[in-house]
């Protein structure tokens, strides 16, 4: 067991000591933290709760004790921003939208551009949002500077829709610096996403 005595420490030193002890603990080792003030106790408890750690606590006059360990806690993970952010109040369906062009349908180009803009605006109002949106060939132009829909795409991204752009296509059209949404991806990932979705929509 590791014992962390934070008596006399001021915020946020008790939390730093707690985190260090948990990181250094063995797999099943118990970590006992002793605290001498309520604020530090509440902050350390809140940290453990928010990071999914199992812990128990005891209060006796003027002293607080917390017992925890390494198991299950998120704070043991290495830092990596997950690629998919699921936002609670925007529901997502099991479908993907594939943009293969910066226009919609065949015919007059001006009309096609207007249609794709209206389509993307409409997606924002769907009851369920797409799981992902993929862009290839001239589709990547939609996510670049100067595109009339780049703000709408960014808004969808903020609503939690992950966007993958074909890197080969971005390079082919020399759009590198101008891409404003999503992440660059490859055909292997894009094919995998399309294969695993129950529906792929191609506007």
């Amino acid at each position: 067991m590791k014992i962390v005595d934070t008596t006399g420490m001021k915020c946020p030193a008790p939390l730093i000591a707690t985190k260090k002890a948990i990181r250094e603990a063995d797999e099943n080792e118990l970590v006992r933290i002793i605290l001498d003030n309520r604020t530090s106790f509440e902050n350390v408890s809140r940290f453990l709760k928010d990071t999914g750690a199992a812990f128990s606590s005891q209060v006796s006059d003027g002293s607080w004790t917390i017992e925890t360990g390494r198991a299950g806690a998120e704070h043991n993970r290495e830092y990596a921003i997950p690629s998919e952010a699921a936002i609670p109040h925007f529901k997502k369906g099991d479908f993907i939208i594939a943009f293969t062009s910066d226009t919609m349908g065949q015919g007059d180009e001006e009309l096609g551009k207007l249609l794709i803009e209206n389509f993307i605006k409409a997606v924002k109002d769907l009851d369920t949002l797409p799981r992902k949106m993929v862009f290839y060939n001239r589709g990547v132009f939609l996510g670049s500077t100067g595109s009339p829909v780049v703000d709408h795409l960014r808004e969808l991204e903020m609503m939690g829709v992950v966007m993958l752009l074909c890197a080969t296509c971005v390079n082919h059209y020399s759009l590198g610096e101008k891409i404003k949404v999503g992440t660059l991806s490859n055909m292997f990932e894009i094919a995998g996403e399309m294969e695993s979705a129950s529906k792929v929509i191609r506007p």
Partner: protein
Amino acid sequence: MKTDLLQLAENGGCSSKISPVLLQEILKKLPLSADPNILVDIDSHDDAGVYKINDELALVLTTDFFPPVCSDPYEFGQIAAANSISDVYAMGGTPVVALNIMMFPSSRLSMDDYYQILKGGSDKASEAGISIIGGHTIDDFTPKYGLAVTGFVHPQRIVTNKGALAGDSVILTKPLGTGVILAGHRLNLASAPDLAGALGSMKLLNRTGADIMRKFDIRGATDITGYGLAGHALKMARASEVTISLKMSSVPLIGDTYRIADEGCIPGASFRNLGFVENDSAFADGLDYNLKMIAMDAQTSGGLLMSVPGNIQEEVLRQLHSAGLTSAAIIGSVLPKGDRYLVVVN
């Protein structure tokens, strides 16, 4: 011996604000004035009050003071003044005059320290183009300093928390992390360049950002101080009746802020701010814990948070960058009001 103001203060800067939850409860009990010339008051939780003189002119009134955030008295004076003046900029105003507010322990510090703090404030005021025309000092421990600032604004061009519209992008003009770095500095977790980055950012006036904001007629903005990015964004979302979504991986950070937070250096003020925002916020599944707590980090003299229409966002950003605010970034977007006022994603 060189003075170290940090030896005299437990909490620094805007970290020492009273809990926002408590303040909100108390303010509810105080009557609001019905004077029709009051254009902005505490009702919308804005940065400053605005009082109309005539159709062309309104006064912007604000005050702010706090205990030392750094060791050097002159630097502390500069930071406190920049922070106080910032509220006028955040309202779209032009600062005009100010008064000093000081609590000074004359038995613990020298008269030269007193002079240095005031000199820092005075120099920063000059940089902002304003005069300090008076003030008040009380002999008290711990030291505290700040300004009461008066500015002018056109009554039709006030920038408030109420001005965010769905479809706008959210731009932040300064990087985050002063709370984490100052706490880390006290515990020897912050490097000299990190500390210098934080001090430099706190000393920087929001004047440049405000000039660009005015030029583009942006109407929704606030400055980021004690309630942290999340707290101030929430106040703006509530006042504007919208949802603001913050994309934390796009938020610029000072130096090693992330690493220091990851070591557990999360100031107490961040937990207070979390308590203030959590009922009105949706945190994305898998939201990185450190980024979440950095969104709660109390800033001292933080940047402007502006709600910018999509058609001008690139140009606003370009001009901020070329005016020297190189960290300015689009960090989120304004959405129609959803279940929660604030959404925080990675």
